[in-house]
């Protein structure tokens, strides 16, 4: 019974995967590698093809073209029940006619394991629900069902666990709690997790690596810090946190440093952070990287003058300013409430400054 595919371990490789439904391309030439043992998040807006990608990995959908492999073995056309992959479905899909114990034992029994009691009880105590093993799924709360869905999958020790927005139906508090629990379970069992979500905060707090997906393609892939500090496309810059993006024209590039003209001001940035391909670029900076001043500029920093404060909101740890620039664009500025911030009121004229190495530049078409 044990064949190559069902015992495969190693990195998951998707090579040039495309999936079309009729004329519609749901997943478009996707290539990515997910290292064994990692917590990988697939992040993207609704309808971008995340579920379709997971379903192809699970074998519930066949790719139109491309190949999928785990380690050395190609599983592109392997039946779902022969893959070392288990899924935690979005709505959990627990079997309503079976007890919690039998739900969790389902995979083990199908693979012909006779004595399932120890394994099932161990995994139930891992998710702290051992006392509910004789109940039916309908008698569990949403959070409990979610944990059972995880237990039912990991008890099989798959090479790969796919989670399709498993926390989507939970309220915020329970969601935060489950995020911590899932992350803990992943380190505990050491299985590769592929976690699909459209909550950027969830992806950032849980994953080692995030792939940002948009319209069936991967926009950018990297660690949460990399994606946040060095976004490569306009979509990523706006999807992960907030960004200020200002039009500018590249003046010079020394190889180490690029100089951009932004509405008459000279803005500097490391050349490695310029993703623009032509002269016209979008200069980006995160709101919390900007300092706000009522006096004129300090040297050695990027500075934009002539802004007028149009709105101030105090949110406890920080104060958020909305500043209208002379070219009628609103810029967001977050200042820490650490006592160092100047006393600024609505209508004040201000100068905005930030360090060149916090600046990035993007191609406007991206």
């Amino acid at each position, binding site marked *: 019974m044990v064949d190559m595919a069902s015992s495969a371990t190693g990195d998951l490789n998707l090579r040039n995967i495309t999936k079309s439904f009729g004329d519609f391309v749901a997943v478009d030439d996707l290539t990515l590698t997910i290292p064994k043992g990692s917590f990988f998040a697939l992040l993207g807006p609704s309808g971008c093809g995340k579920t379709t990608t997971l379903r192809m990995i699970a074998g519930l959908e066949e790719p139109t073209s491309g190949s999928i492999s785990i380690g050395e073995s190609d599983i592109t056309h392997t039946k779902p029940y022969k893959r070392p992959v288990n899924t935690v479905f979005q709505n959990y899909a627990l079997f309503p006619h079976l007890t919690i114990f039998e739900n969790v034992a389902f995979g083990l029994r*199908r693979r012909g394991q006779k004595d399932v009691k120890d394994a099932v009880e161990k995994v139930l105590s891992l998710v702290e629900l051992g006392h509910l093993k*004789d109940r*039916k799924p309908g008698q569990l709360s949403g959070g409990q069902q979610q944990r059972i869905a995880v237990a039912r999958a990991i008890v*099989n020790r798959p090479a790969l666990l796919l989670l399709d927005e498993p926390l989507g139906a939970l309220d915020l508090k329970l969601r935060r709690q489950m995020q911590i629990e899932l992350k803990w379970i992943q380190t505990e069992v050491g299985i590769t997790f592929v976690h699909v979500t459209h909550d950027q905060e969830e992806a950032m707090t849980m994953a080692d690596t995030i792939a940002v997906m948009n319209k069936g393609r991967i926009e950018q892939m990297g660690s949460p810090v990399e994606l946040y500090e060095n976004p490569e496309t306009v979509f990523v810059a706006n999807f992960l946190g907030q960004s200020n993006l200002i039009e500018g024209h590249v003046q010079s590039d020394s190889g180490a440093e690029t100089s951009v003209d932004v509405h008459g001001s000279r803005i500097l940035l490391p050349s490695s952070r310029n993703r623009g391909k032509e002269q016209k670029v979008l200069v980006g900076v995160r709101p919390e990287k900007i300092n706000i001043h009522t006096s004129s500029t300090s040297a050695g920093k990027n500075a934009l003058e002539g802004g007028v404060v149009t709105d101030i909101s105090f949110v406890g740890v920080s104060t958020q300013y909305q500043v209208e620039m002379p070219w009628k664009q609103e810029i967001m500025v977050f200042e820490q409430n650490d006592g160092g911030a100047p006393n600024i009121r609505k209508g004040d004229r201000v100068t905005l400054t930030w360090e060149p190495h916090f600046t990035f530049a993007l191609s406007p078409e991206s």
Partner: protein
Amino acid sequence: MREVSRWFSRNLIRIYAALAFIYLFIPVAYTMAFSFNDSGKRNLIWQGFTLKNWANPCGAPEVCTALGNSLKIGVISTLIATILGTMIAFALGRYNFRGRSSTNLIIFLPMATPEIVLGASLLAMFLNLGINPGFWPTVIAHIMFCISFVVVTVKARVASLDPKLEEAARDLYANEYQTFRRVTFPLVLPGIAAAALLAFSLSFDDFIITNFNSGTVTTFPKFVWISSARGVPAQANVIGSAMFLIALIIVVAGQFAGNARAKRNR
């Protein structure tokens, strides 16, 4: 006066329920009462209480033969109609094939056609084929009209089945057969059971189509009809009452079992 009207408005629902109940159960109560009638031949006038009808339900000639025929026809046609109907329901609910919508329509036809028309045309068909009316033609006729009800009942259950559950089963190492055996079938089973009960009661109860196609074979409804001209023997009341009580006991037991299970799981 005010007191009375207030009492009325407070108990209106109860009064209404009681009246509706009485209306529904007077015929049943009447049937039961007259199963204890010491009647002789004609069971129309109350002659005095006796248990002898219940002690010997097969006392009247033909009552038990008719009942036996009805049960045989009911069981055979229920079994076959349930199996065939369930298969059709899965095909219609799960697969897209050419002629699916016309099949859907044809399945509904026997339910919409007046029984008297069905019965008469079936008889004409059997005679044209050179088959004499009797036991098997009746079974075939019953299977035909039961299938429609089975398909409709089971299809509703199949349609309400979440396809994610079957995907989850396949994801958890169940092959096609195991997925059906462990997930699909158990989840559709209540629908199949309901369909079988419905089919049996339809078959057992049927008079019109049976009357056309059964020839000399007498079923229970047919026996009651024929003997009503001369007077229905009290044993028929015994059997009718017994059927009612058995059905009632099954329903009540089912309720209790369900409640007990729910309590145990809590």
